[in-house]
């Protein structure tokens, strides 16, 4: 598993103080560890992007559901109304 777990523990602040210090020292000394560190942070960010995208997709399907359900006719009309008067 090489350094992946270690980097995660460092980022999550779950290393013991001594280990943390040792990791920081290794980070300073090793360009390849620095590179892994950089790309691992980027990996977390991409996962975050993915999560946001999935939530947004959920909202989009909720939107379609709400705007196609006849039970919400009044709600739909009130919203559409806001945009109708604008197009004069």
């Amino acid at each position: 598993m090489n350094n992946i777990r270690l980097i995660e523990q460092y980022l999550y602040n779950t290393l013991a103080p001594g280990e943390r210090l040792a990791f920081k020292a290794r980070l300073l000394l090793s360009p390849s560890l620095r590179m892994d560190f950089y790309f691992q942070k980027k990996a977390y960010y991409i996962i975050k992007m993915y999560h946001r995208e999935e939530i947004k997709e959920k909202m989009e399907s909720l939107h379609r559901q709400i705007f196609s359900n006849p039970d919400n006719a009044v709600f739909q009309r009130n919203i559409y109304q806001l945009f109708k008067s604008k197009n004069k």
Partner: protein
Amino acid sequence: MEVLEKVVESTYTEKQTGELYKRAFPRVAAFVSHMGGSFEDARDIYHDALVIYFETLSQNDVEIHTSEEAYILGIAKHLWIRKNKHARINVSLSGLENTIYIPEDYFPTVENKRLLRYLKSVGKKCMDLLRAFYYEQIPVKKLAGSLGYSNEHSVSVQKYKCLEKVRETIKQKSMLYEDFFE
């Protein structure tokens, strides 16, 4: 570390999310309409505002001193300003709305979008596992069951394997179109 902030959808049930959706949309729609935007503009901004709202809720250090609708409208106003650079002067923000901010990393770069698209096409299973692990508050035990792993330990092993795969893919791809070395 900002990248590791929890982004959970909070504890809303599907029904509650639907109710919130209907409750907060009219104000956002009225605002966007007032600014001259279309129904589609309102919908898009609203969805981003909800994503950001859920994310805010999941961060323990943020306190929201207003109604959900007002807070979501505040986020929507900021989004509108961002999308329409000249709108700053036309949008009036209340004191409270001035304290709202949109996460700086909310609008990804083209390069990161491309990376995500690629990772979804070659490793959706891993991406799903990682997302569930980091962002959905599903206990690892349950996660193991739903993903078909025999126990918690194998989920954890698999998680690191996936994370490594994602990291290595990003590394490879980034080397191709980015002069990364300083």
